[in-house]
């Protein structure tokens, strides 16, 4: 594995992912604010949560990119289109498994079954994160496809 290349391509891909998600949020295509969602794991303070969440997401992306790189190495091939395919699969996992587990994992998230409580007040994402807007799944698919494509294009095999 090419550690230097992974560090650089993983970092750039994660930055692109974050930028794209922030852009679609700013354009009103989705209400999902991923840094806020992640940051509220650690603090209820809105502004602090967004900062914490951004840092967590950055390291998350870096960590996940190892999996991409390991798959590239195992196939002895790293191309943008294969990276994009992996990104789509990654997004599908996040939207289905990840989001459905969120009310159980997130300490401040309410559930449709029990409603909000004094501690759990955040709206759950629902299936495919559709609670956060009808175009949220599309945004997540697109952002992860770009994430994978950048990794595939920039990573140099060992």
């Amino acid at each position, binding site marked *: 594995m090419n550690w230097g290349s992974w560090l650089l391509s993983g970092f750039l891909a994660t930055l692109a992912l974050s930028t794209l998600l922030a852009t679609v949020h700013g354009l009103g295509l989705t*209400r999902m*604010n991923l840094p*806020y969602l992640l940051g509220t794991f650690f603090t209820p*303070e*809105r502004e602090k949560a967004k900062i914490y969440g951004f840092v967590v997401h950055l390291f998350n992306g870096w960590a996940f990119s190892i999996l991409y790189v390991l798959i590239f190495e195992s196939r002895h091939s790293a191309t943008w289109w294969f990276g994009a395919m992996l990104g789509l699969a990654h997004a599908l996992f996040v939207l289905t498994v990840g989001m459905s587990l969120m009310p159980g994992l997130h300490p401040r998230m309410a559930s449709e079954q029990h409603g909000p409580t004094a501690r759990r007040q*955040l709206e759950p*994402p629902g299936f495919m994160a559709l609670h956060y807007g009808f175009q949220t799944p599309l945004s997540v698919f697109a952002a992860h496809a770009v994430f994978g494509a950048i990794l595939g294009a920039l990573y140099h095999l060992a």
Partner: protein
Amino acid sequence: MRRPTVPENLTEPDKQAPTLHNTFPWPKIGDYAIIGDCRSAALVSRQGSIEWLCWPRFDKASIFAAILDRARGGHWHISPVASASITRQYVSDSNVLETHFSTTSGSAVLTDVMTSGFNRFHLKDLIPDHEIIRRVTCVAGEMEFEIDFFPKASYGKSEVEIHPIGKLGLRFFCGAGVYWLRSSVSLAISDRADRVHGRVVLHAGESVHFSFSYSEEAPTVLPPLTELDAPIDRAIEAWRKWGGRANYDGDHRAMVVRSALTLKLLNHSPSGAIIAAPTTSLPERTGGALNWDYRYCWLRDASFTIRALLELGYWEEAEDFLEWMLQATRLTQPKLRILYSLYGDIAPVERELDYLSGYCDSRPVRIGNAARDQLQLDVYGEVIDAAAQFAFHGGHLDRTLQKVLIGLGNYVARNWDQADEGIWEPRSGRQNHTHSRLMCWTAMDRLVRLCEHGDLKSAPAEDYRRNSNAIRDQIERRAWNDRLQSYVSVLDSDELDASLLLLSWYGFAEAKSPRMQSTYRAVRLHLGTPDGLLYRYRTANSEGTFAICSFWEAEYLALGGGSVQEAQELFAHLLKYANDLGLYGEEIDPKTGGTLGNFPQAFTHVGLIGAALSIRQREMGEPQLAHRPPAAHSHTEIKAT
């Protein structure tokens, strides 16, 4: 104190058509109350119906607009089923509204508050972006309430689709945001899924809560209904603290503080802008076409507003407003537009919403404002005077701000002799307005004084002085009418308007000078009503008397145009035209004393505060601000970054 309990005998929700709201006639404009969070505002009728709300900010499309169309505007109604006598009040010096209902069977209180925004003091908690909390508490006997929740998107144009989401509440999407309605009462969604209805019987001590929230960011915060008393209490405390800071110890303090609280509600806290009013198209003549959108910021209000805020001790708001003015005008400096949006953009193009009936059939309903393209030279004087007042109070003008002021001053020096649309924004063309000349004189005068005091470096003070003298000379020669023995509103004319009283306010002419005394007599004779009110000018299209003009009159008397007793009496008389909550609109109907125009109106409340301050200063023997020498020490610094 015992907390009210949730009733156990909630009536079963049903899908029958709501019965109450459609039977209510149009409320009078003065029958509305305002609640807000310094980013948006809602108008609540005496019957407990929210009939105007724009989220996420004042100038966005409405989600409730029954104030402009009873059938299709949208509303959120909570009211006793039986006929009730109704009284209202704000909880002490706060913007938390209480509506008291009394029926033959009991009495209850509806509490309305917007909890986010201004009082975001509890930042360590999860709080919704925008939220209205409504609480109904039965205090004696029993009472049955009907709830009718009927939101309509885009100024009543589009229906919404409401869905139940498990135990989270009821949800609908609209544009880029999501709305949530949560209730401790069982509510039924209509077959078309666009309306929610319910009834509940409350007994003494019982209470139900409603939370309506909006967010453009997910995950949205959904506070549990059992926790809604705490934010209400916190809101009361935060507003009370803010109102209690008002530095005014004269008569009618409660009304002055109420005006300050209303101004604060119209202050868009993220930007510092202060809007003229939170509504659009409430008519200046019922059934007429004088219906305008006031949800923008007029630079004209600047000097009056800054003075009111500074003298009441609200430095932070005054600084924010001054900064907003400088930021908003940055792209157009040294030219100024007369009005801007909340973030300093050009106000939207005016258009008519012909599908709305308008308040009491006052068509058309307009959004946007065509006055954005007018030339009004008075705004230069108002902006410069606002900065000067800030400096005279001890504020420091940094180098960037000094450059801005010099740029504006140089523009005035080159252009003061032009015709313009003037303060009243007629859509009939440009004229040489005396008030515009007065404000150009004010601009030159204040810049000269700032230069003399050392607040303005590298300014062409001599040029300003020369122009100041030239403007004065022109006003004295061409704005004075020998036949009328009065200044006139347009040069070389015989027209009068109430802004002539401001010649004294800005220090151009002493209030007790012979010319001002006879001008005042002429203004009162031609523009006054037997009830002591003033029209802004005479027009073929009948409209109401202009509320701030009457406060200008009281202030003119306080400045030396009359005795302090005359000023006090007129001021006390004018207070009778406020609604039961102390709120004013733009105009007063001379026949009924009722409110006309957009509501509540910042300009009128600024006028009330200004008059109260001038009267108090006269009582104390202090000079009015415009005539006061600059302060010796700097209090704070404002930066035009």
